[in-house]
């Protein structure tokens, strides 16, 4: 079923991961959805919220809320598990007892993480004939896995790609060390955490490391680029776009 979809690309995509946003839009359009990017949205407020700065978090999130709460029931799709988790679960707390609470609740009901949205209709994806001969390791983002409880959905999506072999990672569910501001606050610890993950990825012998969270990918790809890991890194959206090309 094709439908009208609002795509919230997130701030990380606006600064460093524009490609992810473009690829997500491309895949959604390929499926026949009527995609409209959300204009006027900034950030979900998570960096400040998770640092204990609720006031600026609320001010920024309110701007995004105004842009997202557009009076429709259209699903709002995000190519980011972490931002989805913020909107879906933590806005309630952030706006508790405030005038924005009702709107935040409306938005929370509409937001969908991209791979979970795609997993609603795997047959439609399969019908497009995605094909890529690669061995893939999937990194579960912490917020997707333990807050949104999305474990199977991204795997279901990857399973639609012909020729793709999903190889389990021993460290697949362990944090990559990004942690938002953590990665800048404790760069040495954060890097050590990434290295432990990358060592596992390298040892597993995959062609591609895939995740659905731009934050994790920023961290892992950034470190892998610096250390020269032979494994390439893709967002689920980018992998699908390649598979559809």
């Amino acid at each position, binding site marked *: 079923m094709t439908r009208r979809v609002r795509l919230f690309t997130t701030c990380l995509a606006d600064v460093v991961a524009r490609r992810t946003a473009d690829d997500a839009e491309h895949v959604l359009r390929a499926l026949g959805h009527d995609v409209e990017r959300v204009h006027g*949205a900034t950030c979900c407020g998570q960096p400040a919220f998770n640092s204990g700065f609720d006031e600026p*978090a609320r001010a920024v999130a309110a701007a995004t809320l105004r842009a997202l709460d557009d009076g429709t029931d259209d699903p709002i799709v995000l190519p980011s598990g972490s931002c989805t988790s913020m909107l879906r679960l933590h806005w309630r707390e952030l706006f508790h007892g405030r005038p924005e609470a009702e709107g935040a609740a409306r938005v929370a009901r509409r937001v969908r993480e991209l791979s979970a949205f795609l997993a609603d209709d795997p047959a439609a994806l399969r019908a497009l004939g995605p094909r890529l001969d690669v061995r893939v390791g999937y990194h579960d983002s912490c917020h997707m896995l333990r807050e949104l409880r999305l474990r199977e959905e991204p795997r279901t999506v990857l399973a639609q790609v012909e020729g793709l072999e999903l190889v389990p990672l021993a460290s697949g569910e362990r*944090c990559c060390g990004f942690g*938002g501001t*953590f990665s800048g606050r404790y760069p040495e610890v954060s890097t050590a955490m990434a290295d432990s993950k990358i060592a596992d990825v390298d040892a597993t012998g995959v062609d591609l490391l895939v995740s659905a969270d731009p934050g994790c990918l920023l961290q892992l790809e950034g*470190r892998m680029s610096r250390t020269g890991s032979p494994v390439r*890194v893709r967002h689920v959206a980018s992998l699908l776009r390649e598979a559809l090309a």
Partner: protein
Amino acid sequence: MSATTPREDAEVGGRPLPPGWAAPAHQPGADSLADTTFEERARENLARPFQRTAIANATDHTVFALQRRFAGTAHDALRDEARRIRAHAITNLPTYLEQWVDRAEARGTQVHFAADEAEARRIVAGLCAERGVGRVVKSKSMASEEVSLNSALEGAGIDVVETDLGEFVVQAMGDRPSHVIAPILHRTQGEVHELFSAMAGEDLPDDPEALTGFAREGLRHAFLTADAGISGGNFLIAETGEVAMVTNEGNGRLTTSLPRIHIALVGIEKMLPRRTDLAVLLPLLTGHGTGQQITTYVSVLGGPRGAGEPDGPEEMHVVLLDGGRSALLGGEFEEALHCIRCGACQNVCPVYRQVGGHAYGWVYGGPIGAVLTPLFRGQADGGELSHATTLCGACDDICPVRIPLHDLLLGLRRRRVAEDVAPLSERLAFRAWGLAWRHPATYRASTAVARAGLAVLARDGVVSRRVPGLARWTATRDLVLGRRR
């Protein structure tokens, strides 16, 4: 009565430890955590790849054993029930404490009340001085670490011997335990071999069995010659006035059986309403702690040696420690008191795995350490620790009593801001961020500037040099903007 000189009579059994074997005890409470940062403290472990591998292997093994242990049982229901028991016990702590004290005293236990760490030290040292205690054997107690008990006793001229194998190594090295359950997770067999060989004055065989055998002889002598045994306690049972404790080596049992005086130092939050609650909490404590069905030894102590019993201490003392606990009751962080010190959150913590226990700076490491340290020591001292986690949530998922560690950590970060303890630079940065990104126009402008700046620095879509303002981030990582070839 003055302290008696411990008998160094090999005839009594075991082999006396050589004079001066122990390094001066570390005083966890004496260091200010604010003098160093978490990352500075973490560096020591980060620089030791062997230790990091050892910690990773050990913690992985324990988590695997845990999962296997509860497979096929209603694990979640058991945890729900444990959570309820703990929540009920803590919300009704005044009632249960009164009940526990009444019952314990009725059974001949002498109960003492330590409002803070200094008072706990005073009480224990006083008991030892009044009773002419020259040597004390200790079984592992985190509460005694909290109050820096060993150095206080040493200062009073008392010979203190830690009897848990790991804690014995820690004491001999003048080190600190790095894990609630496995104190020398950060030490290698080679280090223990070197240490024990020096103590023995000969080159001992470098295998764990022989090394353990060496420690056993020295510690056996200490058990047989000690005047007092000091232990912690895993649970207080209100209904019966008992103290329950678990060990695997058996040192806890010998500590509380052989010396004529037993002193238990126990935090007031260890309360369980009933004996029957052990059937829920014990399997969780041992299963989450080590993956065992049950620890080798469980002792439930209800007073000194009874009439007609062949052994046991003439006196049993319990020192109840508040030490910042009562201040948490009824508040936002009350659930931190539900902790049963199993160490599972440490085992799954991806940060702990890299940095080890010492980076947390005080007594408790891992997620629960990052919560308890600022709560017990104050925001100004330990507040930074709430940031020493990626909020990945693995701790929430494994906690046997379902403490919402993620929420508590986030709450502590908020409190740090509310109490103005957060650094000025951080406050200014978030204020500026908030001002710029609350309007779509300024947001677009700032992200456009950022993009343009990165584009200038990038080569083939990759920024692999230090970026102004992100120098620490980009010191070890590239910013990949396009597709890396």
